[in-house]
């Protein structure tokens, strides 16, 4: 029993040490990325295309739907309490501060996280990582950093896009319930929007992007020898990505607004 507990603690300590070492390497190689004569630039472009551009349609749909839901719910409940004017504040708080960053992060964590983990896991098993090393390519620099940068840039861009589309969605649905002039709607929204809301959404999306990409690449690289480890790595990439994004979201909100 004690021996088993000791082995478990030892394995956990080794895992954390490996994770810390991995994060340090990613940080170091990211700092050096622009200074190197990079052959990895096209990997970054491809990652932005895959994670960012290809996710635009699904983000649009979800943002429009959520914008519509909030305006319908708000438009129904708030007048009963004589608080119709709060609708714009609620739109800003819910979409810009919270739903925009977290839902975009979930979409990317569910879509790109497992893809990245599975792709890298496959590369480990088929010795492609060793092949990169054999020709003098640092796998962290060539495979991880472009994915971390690509996912982070995509999450940030898609979050801004989500916020915009969410607010547009709510405007379109508002036209069906009680039409508001375009200028009046957006000028009311802009009056409620503060600089710290914009900074909050950018900070959150940046941190979520880093979390999703580092977790996914770490899980991919943790695959050691067998293809049966790959689905587990993909699942862990999503699960850990979700949990860490939730925790980071709560922490940032607490620090930022309390």
């Amino acid at each position: 029993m004690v021996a088993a507990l000791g082995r478990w603690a030892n394995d956990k300590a080794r895992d954390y040490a490996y994770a810390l070492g991995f994060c340090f390497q990613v940080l170091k190689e990211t700092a050096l990325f622009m200074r190197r004569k990079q052959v990895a630039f096209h990997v970054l472009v491809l990652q932005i295309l895959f994670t960012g551009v290809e996710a635009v349609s699904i983000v649009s749909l979800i943002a429009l739907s959520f914008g519509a839901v909030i305006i319908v719910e708000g438009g129904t409940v708030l007048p009963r309490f004589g608080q119709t004017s709060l609708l714009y504040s609620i739109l800003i708080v819910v979409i810009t501060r919270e739903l925009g960053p977290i839902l975009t992060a979930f979409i990317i964590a569910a879509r790109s996280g497992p893809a990245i983990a599975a792709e890298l896991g496959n590369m480990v098993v088929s010795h492609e990582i060793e092949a990169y090393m054999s020709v003098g390519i640092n796998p962290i620099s060539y495979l991880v950093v472009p994915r971390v940068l690509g996912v982070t840039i995509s999450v940030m861009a898609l979050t801004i896009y989500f916020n915009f589309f969410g607010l547009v969605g709510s405007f379109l649905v508002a036209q069906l319930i009680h039409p508001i002039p375009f200028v009046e709607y957006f000028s009311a929204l802009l009056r409620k929007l503060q600089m710290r809301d914009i900074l909050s959404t950018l900070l959150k999306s940046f941190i979520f992007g880093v979390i999703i990409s580092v977790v996914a690449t770490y899980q991919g690289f943790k695959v050691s020898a067998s293809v049966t480890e790959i689905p587990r790595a993909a699942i862990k990439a999503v699960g850990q990505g979700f949990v860490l994004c939730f925790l980071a979201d709560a922490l940032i909100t607490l620090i930022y607004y309390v």
Partner: protein
Amino acid sequence: MGDIVALEDVRLTLGGFEALRGVSVGFAEGKSTVIMGPSGCGKSTLLKVAAGLIPPDSGRVCFRGRDIFQMSERALLGMRRQNGFVFQDGALWENKSLFENLALPLQVHFPEVPAADRSRRVIRALERVGLEESASERPAALSGGEKKIAALLRALVTEPILLFMDEPTLSVDFAMTGRINQIIRDQKGRGSTIIAVTHDAQLTASLADRLVVMEAGEVLASGDFDEVKRSPHARVRAILSEVLKDIASYDTDLLELLDQDQEPGER
């Protein structure tokens, strides 16, 4: 000439299994060394450690006297430029075309060479083995033999002075084996150092200047091919006989020599 790569008391445990147990062996510059031993004895691991792809738990791995795992990034890149590695399963990059697989090492090591020149070099390499028509194909579209030969071309495209090969002719048909052997012989003819793990008696007979025999993570014998082949060590002779037995039909002279040297009852 001295050793281009030398391992000193190298120990390595992988997944709880002791893969290398205090291995000390040198690989002479300009010579071809074949590593033999039963399956699972640590040959491939030794090759990867010698190439600096897997760090050992203890011991030193030196390239021209310098510890590979203590090298600066720049020195390591310089060493990689002089090395080529052929993996047992080819390990071609599946998300790249055949052309890109060969072009990437050139892009990394010769960024100053114009892209058009690098492309010409890749096409010339592919033409040499008749794969130029498949340049835009992904590795998944190639046959097993074509993958092997492409992996060999990738390792050779930077014109290395040291070539590591892990079973370069394993699971390859007779015709393709002949083409691969010819490319390897040409490379040997250029004076390159070759370190190969192989069970191919034909390749061994035509390539080996030196022989390393391993068992259970240890080097049992190493030295000149003829010396090791005639080793009085019973286990060495038994392993060579065992390893080469299955492909005796391909062999021309190696088993005959082994048979001549062996006493009845030793096998």
